[in-house]
């Protein structure tokens, strides 16, 4: 694990892992989408709209998964002060925001024919919206504080403070008896979904996870390269500022 503190190792790892993760994501999502549209049965109550669930549920899982990745990276920033942890934190926020947004939009599109409305102020919907707001606030924080180390520390503490929202989202459907249905896949009594629907869902979820991992690694790589470029630009600029003799001496 400690090797991941080394940006060069991360770059090498990313170069090898990104094509594998990307290929896995493409394969699993292609198989998953085929199963969703041609094999999985329509629901006896929801009809064809049930197919939205295969996008909606993985997006919701990954919206929360990205936050957990971001929170672990935040811990890395605060405890070990890894620059790679900073980059992982920064990269996870827009991805998490995207998955959360997809979850909210697909849920809303499903809600119109099923619940008769695009939006209700239900506990899980609201806490998911708060998650999106936290992501957006963190992105704003990253964009506002110019110095990357400072931004990383501020974002890390805010991420850990915002972590209280995750259990609220997870258990909102159990704590409050609301419109959103309770958990049906991860239950102690086993999944309450029939196999022909469960398998496409799991394949879509694993595919979406690989998509997240590939995009996250690409974004981390970009962040590391961006920082290197920034440092080189600064060095070049300060070298140009030096008087000619000093530059000559530096060259020796």
């Amino acid at each position, binding site marked *: 694990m400690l090797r991941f503190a080394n940006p060069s190792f991360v770059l090498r790892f990313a170069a090898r892992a990104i094509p594998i993760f990307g290929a896995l994501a493409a394969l699993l999502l292609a198989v998953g989408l085929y199963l969703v549209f041609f094999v999985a049965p329509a629901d006896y109550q929801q009809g064809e709209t049930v197919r939205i669930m295969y996008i909606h549920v993985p997006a919701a899982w990954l919206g929360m998964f990205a936050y957990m990745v971001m929170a672990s990276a935040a811990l890395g920033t*605060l405890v070990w002060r890894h620059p790679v942890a900073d980059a992982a934190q920064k990269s996870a926020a827009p991805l998490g925001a995207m998955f959360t947004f997809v979850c909210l939009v697909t849920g809303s599109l499903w809600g119109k024919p099923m619940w008769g409305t695009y939006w209700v102020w239900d506990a899980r919907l609201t806490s998911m919206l708060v998650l999106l707001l*936290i992501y957006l*606030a963190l992105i704003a*924080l990253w964009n506002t504080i110019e110095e990357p180390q400072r931004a990383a520390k501020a974002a890390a*503490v805010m991420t850990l403070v915002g972590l209280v929202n995750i259990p609220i989202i997870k258990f909102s459907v159990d704590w409050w008896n609301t419109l959103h249905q309770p958990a049906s896949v991860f239950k102690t009594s086993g999944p309450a979904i029939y196999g022909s629907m469960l398998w496409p869902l799991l394949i879509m979820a694993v595919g979406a996870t690989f998509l997240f991992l590939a995009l996250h690694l690409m974004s981390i790589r970009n962040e590391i390269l961006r920082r290197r470029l920034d440092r080189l630009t600064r060095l070049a600029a300060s070298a140009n500022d030096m008087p000619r003799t000093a530059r000559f001496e530096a060259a020796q």
Partner: protein
Amino acid sequence: MKSPLAALFVREFAIARRIGGGGSMGVVFLLVLVTIVPFAIGPDLNLLRRIGPAILWIAALLAMLLGLDRLFQADFEDGSLDQLQLGATPLEFVVFVKCLAHWATTALPLVVAAPLFGVLMAQEAASMLGIGVSLLVGTPALTFIGAVGAAATVSLRRGGLLMALLVLPLCVPALIFGVSAATAASGGTIPFATPLAILAALTLASGALCPFAAAALLRRLGE
């Protein structure tokens, strides 16, 4: 001989009073918000009576955000914060006392004024009392949560808007239980004490935890 924390409280209080503006300006802001709402939704007294507690809570929340970005900023700029960090008193306690002083100078006037402005929202006596008590119990939580946002944006010159973005989503639970306590006071199905107890729990928990987060931010951002 005063204890350092008592001295800090007196100092914060004196600064807030001498600079002026903080408390009284918040109350005026509250009055302005309460005044413009009926312009927007119409002078329907029944509607205002129903949403009055919520309007007053939101107005108090926004009024509290106004002065919050200065909580650590002035001390950060003139170096007092470095002095406070160098002292023997743990920074967590310093943050806690600064929050208390800030609450006493900005939130307490709002707690007193908001129920009175309930008159403009057609509130009855029981409901005004409920608004006052729920604000008294709930506003410290807003100050403590706000302190984390204020600490995160301490080094930014124009961090006010960003601070609001960071803090407002975290204030949602306090707002929910505050408004439900305030509305429960004027009758309804839930007893007044239930949401109030949760609100008190939120205040105590944020008072215990947020100073650590804020102090961690101040230490790391000051480096």
